């Protein structure tokens, strides 16, 4: 048996854990603590896998996914493919608090965020731009396409489906990077 309260988070993101703990100590709820912990990681760009300036997509843009769940009410707020808004977990909390929906995505999620008072700003940094430039210079390797022409294992896109689809049976490719993950 353990002790309560408990903060548990993936990866050694100590500042996020501390932020969540402080929120509880200040009288905040479990939801407040999760939001605070995740927001801290977003601000500090935890290992480059959280927040702005990391994991550019094929077009060089950083997009964010976040979700928060209340285990008391089973209420959930989430955003996916959120663009140009830094505080993704904050927007997810607004989805939870101010809508009866669960998940908003893409440009429409950005519009929702703006209506909730979040600032629309570029999420790219010199680091993310350099990552993207290097990827282009490597002929767009690695990537997540399959069964397309031109051969995605050698060339950049744009891609299109072949006239005759040869099913290669590949359901999974090894991770492109050990530390490129959700």
């Amino acid at each position, binding site marked *: 048996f353990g002790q309560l*309260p408990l903060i548990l988070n993936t990866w050694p993101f100590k500042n996020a854990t501390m932020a969540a703990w402080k929120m509880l100590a200040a009288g905040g709820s479990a939801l407040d603590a*999760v*939001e605070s912990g995740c927001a801290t990681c977003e601000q500090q760009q935890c290992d480059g896998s959280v927040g702005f300036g990391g*994991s550019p997509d094929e077009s060089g843009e950083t997009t964010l996914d976040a979700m928060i769940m209340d285990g008391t009410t089973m209420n959930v707020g989430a955003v996916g493919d959120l663009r140009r808004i830094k505080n993704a977990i904050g927007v997810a909390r607004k989805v939870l608090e101010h809508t009866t929906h669960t998940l908003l995505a893409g440009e429409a999620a950005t519009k929702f965020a703006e209506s909730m008072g979040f600032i629309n700003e570029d999420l790219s940094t010199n680091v993310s731009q350099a990552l993207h430039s290097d990827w282009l210079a490597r002929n767009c390797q690695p990537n997540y396409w399959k069964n397309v022409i031109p051969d995605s294992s050698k060339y950049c896109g744009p891609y299109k489906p072949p006239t005759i689809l040869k099913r290669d049976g590949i359901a999974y490719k090894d991770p492109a990077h050990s530390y490129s*993950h*959700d």
Partner: protein
Amino acid sequence: TIGMVVIHKMGNIAAGTSTNGIKFKIPGRIGDSPIPGSGAYADDMVGAAAATGDGDILMRFVPSYQAVEYMRRGENPTTACEKVISRIQKYFPKFFGAVICANVTGSYGAACNKLSTFTQFQFMVYNPLKSEPTEEKVDCI
């Protein structure tokens, strides 16, 4: 990606995630993190869990929901996490992923899928038994 589980001293449980996803994703791609039951899941009656790794695989198994359901059936958090990893392993032996689990009493555990480049998983814990946030790790299975 960060996945976080918080259990309040009064028993209220919350979970959440935040991520910028995988590098060089096809624009429009959304991973497991914002999917309830996949990136994270919480139920005051049982506990909570959060997952991290290759979201395109993880989301097919709703691992956080599955971990909570294992705990609901009486499994301890570590076993619940391990069972989730084992379930995915059967279909994708080389998937990259880890899960953290906690139950309503404050017990916790974690598990990960062992790869040549990923043999241990580190996570953070803070409860009244510790004087500061503490890094713990588990050997992947």
